[in-house]
């Protein structure tokens, strides 16, 4: 596990980050210029934090303003935005540079698609091929941590999809923390299970998609309140409707290009959610999912925001205070949330 608690300042820009990265893929998301790449560079040791600590698997990398472990001893794999390969060496040579004392596994070369490129000079590689070689080099030495800094941003759409698919397969086998910086949510959704949201140089949310991406503004602009729940496509019916498994329950949505097995994120707007004590009959809304009321918050203008725990994920619903009272809504109360397939906005890869 990687534990980061650092502060850094560069000119006018200050960054402060306190977060933990467990084995698995974490997407570091946020708009351009919020400090995602800077945080990655600080973790790698390419820049020095002003203060704080970085601890990897219990061993300090950075402690009390001093670097304990220099970059080249941190056993990190890193993929940059563009291929930083040695121009005077072949593809194989370049991959070997990342291997240290380890043997390069044939399966790594095959998975990254580098097995067909080995003897090529680096100059003739396309952008996508360069990133494949970069990934092979990053993983060749069996790193303790993998950092990726917008690795697909310089690629065209087609190669972006191919490499994204390849990375998804490779990441699934890794047992190390992987930090993936991106500003496109689609990439993050496809590759990561955990999300770290950065805004203005600080981490503002960290966790599952539902925790990070559900948008709860502090003001009473309740129309903008939404929640995001995560599920997996279990079935496509008539190539128009996707059955999405959420925990032990199912929701049905329009396919919108998803495939069976895809992980999907559904955005539900709080104003669109209907609450019911019992499953209603003969109603056009297709989705009725059971949950439990978790929390009620009074909004200033006669509305109540009801947070419902659905299979471990929170869904917010907006009702009138009057309704909340009449329905006797209270924490722990079992409840159905009802929504139309058409009101679901889905965010997927």
């Amino acid at each position, binding site marked *: 596990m990687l534990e980061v608690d650092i502060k850094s300042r560069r000119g006018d820009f200050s960054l402060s980050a306190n977060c933990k990265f467990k084995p698995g893929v974490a997407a570091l998301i946020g708009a351009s210029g919020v400090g995602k790449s800077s945080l990655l560079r600080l973790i*790698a*040791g*390419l820049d020095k934090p002003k203060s704080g600590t970085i601890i990897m698997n219990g061993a300090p990398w950075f402690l009390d303003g001093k670097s304990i472990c*220099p*970059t*080249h*001893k*941190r*056993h*990190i*794999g*890193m993929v*940059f935005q*563009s*291929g*930083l*390969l*040695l*121009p*005077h*060496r072949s593809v194989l040579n370049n991959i070997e*540079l*990342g291997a*240290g004392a380890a043997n390069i596994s044939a399966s790594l070369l095959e998975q990254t698609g580098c097995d067909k490129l080995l003897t090529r*000079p*680096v*100059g003739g*590689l396309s*952008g996508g091929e*360069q990133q494949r070689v970069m990934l092979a*080099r*990053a993983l060749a*030495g069996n790193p303790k941590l993998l*950092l990726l800094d917008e690795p697909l941003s*310089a*690629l065209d759409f087609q190669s972006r999809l191919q490499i994204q698919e390849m990375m998804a397969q490779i990441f699934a086998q890794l047992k190390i923390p992987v930090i993936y910086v991106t500003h496109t949510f689609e990439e993050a959704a496809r590759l990561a299970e955990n999300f770290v949201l950065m805004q203005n140089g600080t981490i503002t949310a960290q966790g599952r998609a539902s925790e990070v991406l559900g948008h709860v503004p502090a003001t009473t602009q309740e129309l903008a309140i939404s929640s995001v729940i995560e599920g997996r496509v279990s079935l496509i019916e008539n190539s128009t409707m996707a059955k999405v498994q959420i925990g032990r329950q199912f929701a049905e949505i329009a396919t919108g290009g998803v495939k069976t097995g895809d992980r999907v994120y559904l955005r539900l707007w709080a104003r669109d959610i209907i609450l019911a004590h019992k499953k209603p009959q003969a109603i056009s809304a297709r989705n009725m999912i059971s949950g439990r009321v978790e929390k009620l918050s009074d909004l200033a203008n006669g509305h109540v925001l009801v947070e419902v725990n659905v299979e471990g994920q929170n869904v917010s619903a907006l009702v009138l205070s009057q309704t909340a009272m009449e329905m006797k809504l209270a924490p722990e109360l079992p409840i159905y949330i009802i929504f139309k397939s058409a009101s679901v906005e889905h965010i997927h890869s």
Partner: protein
Amino acid sequence: MDFWQRGEASIIDILQISLLSLRVAGVGILFALPIAFCLAYILARGKFVGKALLSALIMLPLVMPPVVTGLMLLNVFGPLGPIGQWLGQFGIVLGFRWTGAALAAGLVALPLIVRPMRMALENVDPRLHEALKVAGHNRWRRLIILDLPLAMPGIIAGTMLGFAKAMGEFGATITFVANIPGETQTLSLAIFSALQSPGGEQLVWTLVAISMGISVVGVVVSEVLVERLSARQNSGRVKHA
């Protein structure tokens, strides 16, 4: 009895002068090279106070009158100079010896070697350094696998430029080690002597031809080497989007 007293130079004499010149310039450059590389590396990578001053100091032999350089060498490395005396304890004598001529040649060539090397090192993409750092390579490994190969055209160009300058060195040499046939009389000094001796005109032109021949061969060889290396590197250079 040397050929100045005999009044005519044999082929062997001319050969000896040429070989001495090559030896003086060669040894001078050989010693100057590692020093030049260290200086170029420090100037290209280092961030320290007084960098501009160091840079200017290195350029001094290029801008000072060679006679002044020779005079300083004489005062420091000569038989009575502090370093000259210290070296004398170990039996190393530079004053009025070919080794002193090599020192003078190396010193005046130094700025010419440092400059292209420094530029070549500065041209190495710092992001490549970072990428290799992350891949587990320390500063010294990166010097070998990244800096040296990528800066090689600059190193060769600088070396050749320095060698040409060393071959032609005159003022500092004659001031520091005088013009002693068979010991410190290089091609340039021999041309000077021949010009002054009556009937030495034919010898002058022979020596001039040899001197030019060596320079041309040197420059052509370096050009070819640099071109080949650059072509190889450019064929492999990664195109950044």
